[in-house]
C-alpha cells in the first residue's frame, strides 16, 4: 500500500517513520530511489495527488514582483501558480528536462561577488553529479571547463585566451513534458518499495519544534477536505521546492515567532532566479544572437532547440575574475523561419562587411538567434516573505520580491561585451543584443528556477542550513532542493539539486545510524 490518500484516513491519524520527507517532487523521488529497499521506513508527505488538482495548485498562489534599478516593476504573481506544481513528481511535471552541472566557477569563492562560494567544490560534487546523471539517464558531466569533445561537432574557434568555453547541456527523458509515460514510472516506481509510503493530498501546515527548540517534534498535516493528521520521524527532510521550503519554515512560527531555523533572519532571503535575455521582434526587425561568419558546422551549439545534447558559450572563472563579472551563458540556436524577423538592409550590410573582415565568403555565414543568461547575485533584499492573505488551509500566502541590483545589470552588459569581443577578435562573428538596460525586467523571460531561500553556509550567521543541509540549530531537520544553493550559477538547477540530494542522502544514513 505505498500510496495512501490522506483524505480518506480517520481524522488525527499519526504517520510514523524513521525518515519523514515533505514533498514527493524531484528531490523526493531522488530520496526514494536512494532509500528504497533499505532497513529504514520512509514516509513522504505530498500535497498533491497523481493527477493535477486545481484546488491543490491554488495553494501556490501569492504575490510576486520582479524589480531592478532603472526598470519599472513587473507584477509576476501568475508565476507562483504557473511556475511550480503541487503534485506527485512536483516540477518534473512541467520541467523541460535540461540538465546542467554548475561550473567550477559557481562553487568558487569569488571575492568580487558578495556571499559567493559553496562549502563544497565542483570536484567534490563529481560523484553526486554522476549519480544524479544516472538517475536522469544522461551522460556524466566532466568536472572542468570542458566541452562535449565530439570531433564530429567542432567547437567554435574562439581565441585561445581561455576566456570562453563551450559548456555542455543534456536533456533527460525523465520529465512529464518529454515522456509522460516514462516519467509516470519514474515518479511512482521508487515509492513502491515496502519500506516506503507516500501520503497524498497531505499538506504540511506547520513544522512543530520540541519544547527546547532544538529538534522537530512532529509535522502538522491538513487535507483540503478538513481532515488533520500528524507525522513523526527521527529525521525530517523539507523537499517542497525553492519557494515552498522557505514558506513552510516561516509559517511554522508557533514556537519561535520568526519561524523554524530563522534565528539569523535568513529564511526566505537571497532568492535567486534566472532570466533569459533575448529578442525576436518581427516588426522592428530585431533578433538577438550572432552572425557567424564561417558557419560550417554549428550543430554543437544549435541542436539544443531540438532537445539534443549541445553546448552554450560560457566565460571561464579566469575571465570572470579578470572582468570582475558574474557567470553568464550565451545560448545559440536556429529558430523557425516564420519566427525570424525579415532581414533588414543593415543586417545584410553588417554580415557582408563582417565576413570580409573575418576573411570569409558571405555565403559561408549564418545569423543565429541567441539569448543570454546572467547570474543573479545573492541579495538579502531579494526575498520571500509571508503575505497578508491565507490559503484554503489557513497558511499565509507567499510574497516574492525578486530583486536585481545595478551589479547584475553591469555584469550582464559586461558579459555581452565580452562575448562580442571574444567572437569578433577570433574572427567568428558579430554579436547582436538589441536590449537596453531600462528594458531588462520587462523583456526578459523569467525561468522557473527558484534558489537560495534556505542558503547553505557553515556559519549560522550566513546560512540557514549547514554544509550537510541540516538546518542550523535544529538537530533533525534537513532541507533538499535548490533553496539550499548559496549562489545561483547559470544552469538549470534540477541536476544540481538532485546531486545535492544524493549527498544529503549519504549524510542521512549516518544520521539515522547515530540516532539508532
Amino acid at each position, binding site marked *: 500500500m505505498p500510496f495512501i490518500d490522506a483524505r480518506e484516513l480517520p481524522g488525527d491519524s499519526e504517520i510514523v517513520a524513521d525518515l519523514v520527507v515533505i514533498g514527493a517532487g524531484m528531490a523526493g523521488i531522488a530520496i526514494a530511489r536512494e532509500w528504497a529497499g533499505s532497513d529504514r521506513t520512509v514516509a513522504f508527505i505530498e500535497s498533491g495527488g497523481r493527477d493535477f488538482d486545481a484546488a491543490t495548485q491554488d495553494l501556490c498562489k501569492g504575490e510576486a514582483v520582479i524589480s531592478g534599478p532603472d526598470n519599472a516593476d513587473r507584477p509576476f504573481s501568475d508565476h507562483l501558480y504557473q511556475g511550480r506544481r503541487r503534485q506527485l513528481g512536483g516540477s518534473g511535471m512541467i520541467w523541460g528536462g535540461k540538465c546542467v552541472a554548475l561550473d567550477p566557477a559557481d562553487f568558487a569563492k569569488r571575492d568580487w561577488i558578495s556571499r559567493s562560494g559553496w562549502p563544497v567544490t565542483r570536484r567534490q560534487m563529481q560523484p553526486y553529479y554522476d549519480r544524479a546523471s544516472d538517475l536522469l539517464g544522461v551522460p556524466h558531466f566532466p568536472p572542468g571547463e570542458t566541452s562535449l569533445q565530439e570531433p564530429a561537432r567542432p567547437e567554435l574557434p574562439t581565441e585561445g585566451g581561455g576566456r570562453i568555453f563551450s559548456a555542455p547541456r543534456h536533456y533527460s527523458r525523465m520529465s512529464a513534458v518529454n515522456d509522460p509515460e516514462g516519467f509516470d514510472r519514474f515518479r511512482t516506481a521508487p515509492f513502491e518499495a515496502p519500506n516506503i509510503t507516500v501520503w497524498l493530498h497531505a499538506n504540511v501546515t506547520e513544522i512543530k519544534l520540541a519544547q527546547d527548540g532544538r529538534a522537530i517534534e512532529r509535522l502538522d498535516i491538513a487535507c483540503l477536505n478538513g481532515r488533520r493528521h500528524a507525522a513523526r520521524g527521527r529525521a525530517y527532510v523539507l523537499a517542497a521546492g525553492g519557494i515552498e521550503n522557505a514558506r513552510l519554515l516561516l509559517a511554522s512560527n508557533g514556537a519561535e515567532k520568526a519561524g523554524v531555523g530563522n534565528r539569523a533572519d535568513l529564511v526566505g532571503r537571497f532568492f535567486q532566479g534566472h532570466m533569459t535575455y533575448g529578442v525576436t521582434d518581427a516588426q522592428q526587425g530585431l533578433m538577438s544572437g550572432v552572425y557567424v561568419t564561417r558557419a560550417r558546422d554549428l550543430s554543437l551549439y544549435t541542436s539544443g532547440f531540438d532537445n539534443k545534447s549541445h553546448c552554450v558559450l560560457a566565460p571561464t572563472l579566469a575571465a570572470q575574475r579578470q572582468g570582475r563579472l558574474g557567470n553568464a551563458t550565451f545560448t545559440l540556436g536556429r529558430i523557425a523561419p516564420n519566427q525570424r524577423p525579415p532581414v533588414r538592409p543593415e543586417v545584410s550590410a*553588417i554580415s557582408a562587411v563582417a565576413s570580409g*573582415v573575418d*576573411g570569409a565568403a558571405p555565403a559561408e555565414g549564418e545569423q543565429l538567434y541567441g539569448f543570454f543568461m546572467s547570474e543573479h547575485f545573492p541579495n538579502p533584499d531579494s526575498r520571500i516573505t509571508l503575505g497578508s492573505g491565507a490559503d484554503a488551509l489557513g497558511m499565509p500566502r507567499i510574497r516574492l520580491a525578486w530583486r536585481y541590483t545595478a551589479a547584475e545589470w553591469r555584469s550582464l552588459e559586461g558579459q555581452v561585451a565580452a562575448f*562580442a569581443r571574444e567572437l569578433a*577578435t577570433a574572427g567568428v562573428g*558579430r554579436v547582436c543584443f538589441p536590449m537596453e538596460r531600462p528594458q531588462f525586467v520587462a523583456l526578459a523571460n523569467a525561468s522557473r528556477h527558484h534558489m537560495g531561500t534556505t542558503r547553505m553556509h557553515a556559519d549560522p550567521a550566513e546560512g540557514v542550513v549547514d554544509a550537510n543541509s541540516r538546518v542550523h540549530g535544529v538537530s533533525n531537520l534537513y532541507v533538499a532542493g535548490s533553496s539550499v544553493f548559496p549562489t545561483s550559477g547559470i544552469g538549470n538547477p534540477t541536476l544540481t539539486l538532485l546531486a545535492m540530494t544524493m549527498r544529503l542522502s549519504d549524510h542521512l544514513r549516518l544520521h539515522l545510524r547515530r540516532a539508532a
Partner: protein
Amino acid sequence: MIDRRQVLAALAALAACPAAAAAATVDPEGARRIGDAYLAAHPAARDAARLRAALMPGDWSAAALARLRSRVAADFRAGRVFAYRGWRLSDTEGRLFALVALTPNG
C-alpha cells in the same frame, strides 16, 4: 573622387570576391543607415577624405585587408565598440560604414 559604388565594391572585396560581382552583397542602403548612425554619434568623423585615408590608404591589397582585420580586433580588445540596433561593431567597422554614408552616389 571615388563614388559610393566604388566604396561598396571595396568593402565587398574584403570578402575576396570579384569586386564587381560582389558589390551587390553590401547593401548600400543598410550601409548608409549604419554610417549615418555612426556619424551622429561621432560628429568629428564627418570627413570623407580623412576617413578614406585612414581606412583605405593606397590600393586595396591583401596587406590593407590584414591591417583592417588587425584594427578591428584591436578595437574590440580596447573596448572601442559602436552599437547599432544591438549589433556590436568595432569602431573601424563603424567608420567603414560612415565612409559609405559620406561618399556621394556615383
